[in-house]
């Protein structure tokens, strides 16, 4: 049982590391306005827990990492009450990368689906 759990956990972690970045880029690409972390996490809150078993907070380091990679840019805006908010928007390189990643994702998904369907048919 424990081994199974560990295997699932490992697989989920491996799936998660790329897909979360893709999801975040896609959300920011769709938005006309820059979004702050809370707004982004709110959009995918239930899917996060359901699919990836991750807390909303785990998205923030991914946002930071995408920013450091130049795919997102951010500005810190003071807020009237409370801490300042960091607003993220996608960069030109980010949009271009999203296009490439989406293509890769679709190819991978179709390939895996085909294989899985093939296995099911057998």
């Amino acid at each position, binding site marked *: 049982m424990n081994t199974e759990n560990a295997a699932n956990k490992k697989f989920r972690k491996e799936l998660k590391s790329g897909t979360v970045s893709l999801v975040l880029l896609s959300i920011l690409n769709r938005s006309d306005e820059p979004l702050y972390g809370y707004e982004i996490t709110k959009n995918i809150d239930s899917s996060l827990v359901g699919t990836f078993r991750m807390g909303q*907070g785990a998205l923030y380091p991914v946002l930071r990492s995408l920013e450091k990679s130049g795919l997102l840019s951010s500005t*810190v805006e003071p807020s009237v009450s409370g801490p300042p908010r960091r607003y993220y928007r996608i960069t030109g390189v980010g949009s271009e990368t999203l296009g490439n990643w989406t293509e890769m994702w679709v190819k991978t998904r179709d390939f895996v689906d085909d294989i899985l369907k093939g296995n099911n048919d057998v």
Partner: protein
Amino acid sequence: MSELIKEYLTRLKTALAGSDPATVQDALSDAEEHLWIALQLAKRETPEIGEEEVIASAIERFGSAEEIASAYSEIESRGLPVMEARGPAGRKSSSARFFGVFTDPRAYASLFYMLFSLILGTFYFSWTVTGLSFSIGIIVLIIGLPFLGFFLISVRGIALVDGWIIEALLGERMPRRPIYLKKPANWRERLNFLLNDSMVWKTIIYNIMMLPLSILYFSLTITSLAVSASLFLRPVLEYVFDLPLAQSSNWSFWTPGFLMPVSVALGIIWFLMTLHMAKGLGKMHSKIAKKMLVRD
């Protein structure tokens, strides 16, 4: 800030022990921002629910301190794959870094701060020196102590506002709100607290230091800008406005025509160097301000 959020941030900080200080700061500010917004929204939407309950559920959705710490550590250890593959930002050549400053908004913001700081420095200095000497002067009068209290509160206000300006222009994270303090029972207690608060005295020293510092920043920046403008605009100055490079009563020196492109190019390079200098001074000033205006 709510005690529960504070507690969570402390747990997160402990869980992140050993990580890069910048990562710790990022993690703490992300968590603080998120939980604070969650709390404010919940308060607005369902005011009848208790704060503790709201924060507990927000923390649960946010993720445990250990989970979040490991998410940051994992990303940190993974490095920057995209950057390594593409080779921009992180491994820019030195010439790309030198010329890249031209499109760096942070450099222009620092440049603006360096010029604007003279006004701030003069104001902080005058306010602090006047307030301090006036307070001491009238301390024996009945209005002496209340005035001293008012002055010390104003000093804390200045520290906060200056922090906002520094964060907006220089990008250094500074406290957004005054540290929450229990309401003192009476005036005497409040005054006593202010007098014993090392932050107030450090801010007073900072405010006084701001005058010489801002004079230095302003002079360096304005001189450097003037030099770059005079080099860049040399052809316009000489051919349009008939202003020679150097002049005395009986001679004047005009730049030879073939040197004009060199002068323009030097002007551009000088401007880029000014931007680098402003950024460097900005970084240095943020460090000073953080040391003097932020509670450890």
